[in-house]
């Protein structure tokens, strides 16, 4: 049955044009970076590299600054994600379920970070951190990176908690389950996957956060993106940046694919007011 329909369907030229154009614009730059990472010699005007090899992987991975930045970035992302979860998840539950005075005001103050031009906001925060001697410190960067996680960690979990079937919770309560038991056995398993996606987005987003880390942390606190900036600006060896790009981006990309369900859904765009 299904074989008959496509044979009669007209060719989707618009779709083919979009697919071809987007493949070219979106995929080619990344393929070029990927190729550079496995290249030992690629001189203009050769269309393909003269020599492929892994020499620069070895060189990049033995650089102490790369390891220091990687360790620091992983520490920062873990601390920021855990702190953000500790602050935002209870708040998200309260926003989704409870009615309390000032609820709307508080909810919007959490989302307000996205109603201002971000770097302007970071400068305003940095000016206060300057007085508090937080510039160039680990905790200064943690605090500024927290700001970037608020939207994901509030909006997505609020949507997740709102999506939980209230009747199942009521049914559990009717058979004598306490509030904690209901949350643990009914609410959390339903909202869990979406919240896990929010945590993942938050972790990866923090790992790549460049602006706050550069403004507050550099040069003392050197995260991976900050190191990348110095590689782009000052490093003559092209491959170092390419190797770092592939090495860091591919695992995160695979992790983000798990969170795609959340992003593809309409709820994500609605979070931005769409």
């Amino acid at each position: 049955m299904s074989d008959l329909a496509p044979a009669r369907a007209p060719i989707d030229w618009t779709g083919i044009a979009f697919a071809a154009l987007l493949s070219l614009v979106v995929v080619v730059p990344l393929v070029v970076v990927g190729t550079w990472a496995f290249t030992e010699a690629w001189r203009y005007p050769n269309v393909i590299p003269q020599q492929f090899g892994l020499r620069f992987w070895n060189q990049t991975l033995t650089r102490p600054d790369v390891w220091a930045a990687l360790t620091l970035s992983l520490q920062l992302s873990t601390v920021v994600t855990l702190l953000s979860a500790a602050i935002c998840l209870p708040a998200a539950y309260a926003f989704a379920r409870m009615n309390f005075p000032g609820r709307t005001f508080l909810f919007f103050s959490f989302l307000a970070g996205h109603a201002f031009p971000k770097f302007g906001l970071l400068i305003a925060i940095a000016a206060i951190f300057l007085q508090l001697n937080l510039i160039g410190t680990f905790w200064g960067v943690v605090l500024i990176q927290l700001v970037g996680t608020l939207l994901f960690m509030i909006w997505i979990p609020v949507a997740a908690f709102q999506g939980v079937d209230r009747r199942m919770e009521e049914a559990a309560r009717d058979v004598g389950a306490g509030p904690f038991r209901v949350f643990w056995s009914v609410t959390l398993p339903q909202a869990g996957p979406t919240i896990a996606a929010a945590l993942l987005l938050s972790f990866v987003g923090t790992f790549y956060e460049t602006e706050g880390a550069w403004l507050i942390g550099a040069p003392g606190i050197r995260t991976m993106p900050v190191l990348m900036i110095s590689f782009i600006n000052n490093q003559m060896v092209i491959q170092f940046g390419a190797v770092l790009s592939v090495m860091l981006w591919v695992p995160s990309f695979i992790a983000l694919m798990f969170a795609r369900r959340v992003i593809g859904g309409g709820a994500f765009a609605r979070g931005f007011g769409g």
Partner: protein
Amino acid sequence: MAWLIIWPIINAIGRTIWRPDADGNAGFNLSSYTFFFSDQYSINNLTITLWTTGMCAALLLAICMPIALYLRFSQGRLPAYVQALAIFPMFVPSIILAYAFIRVLGPNGMVDILLNWVGLPKIRTPYLTPWGPVIGLVWDNIPLTVLILLSGLGNIANPAIEAARDVGASRFQVFWHIILPRISNSVLVAISFAVLGIFSSFTLPYLLGPASPEMMGPFMNRTFREVNDPLNAITQAVITFCFCIAFGLFYVRSVARNQGK
């Protein structure tokens, strides 16, 4: 926690308008703003920022609207592939994107290699010109713009469009009279988001754009970090808030409306 956002803004406004004058007497003082608007370099930076933001917003609408319309009214594997590609840039951190663009569009980059291969002369690279950040920022903002427009288009009922088609409306007439009025809010949200994101963007303008004039993001960063002049950096930040306030308010209103649903 919310004070991490609201307090710095109140603080920034307060510190730039209520501060000591030359004699050391604290009071209402707008001299840092006067300096900004009388300094040609600052004006040039603001102008290039406005130009980049406007150009990006226009390009984003021109690129994303047809993609969103196509995705809304098509089904099957090809649209799914197009949607996956359109959302893909969201998964690429801007630092990696900047690096990729330098390798593709920079001097002796992939575009030059391919042009040379087919016997054409090199292009004048957009890298380190005002077009460098425009290309990067448009690339970076395609996913969110498509998603927001698609979310708006999802609210349009098929019968409304079919009825218009039945009475002989052309594709353009359907778009102009039926679709556009219904998604005008989503279009404004998409533009607001793009403007708020682009106006003070840092990474892409810093790595792909010219050193002078520079966009407000790199300008604020340089004033704060390199010139070590927090007062003027905060003044610049407050000026960016003022330029974007309408878009910010619109964003908050739209989220509020969706919350009410």
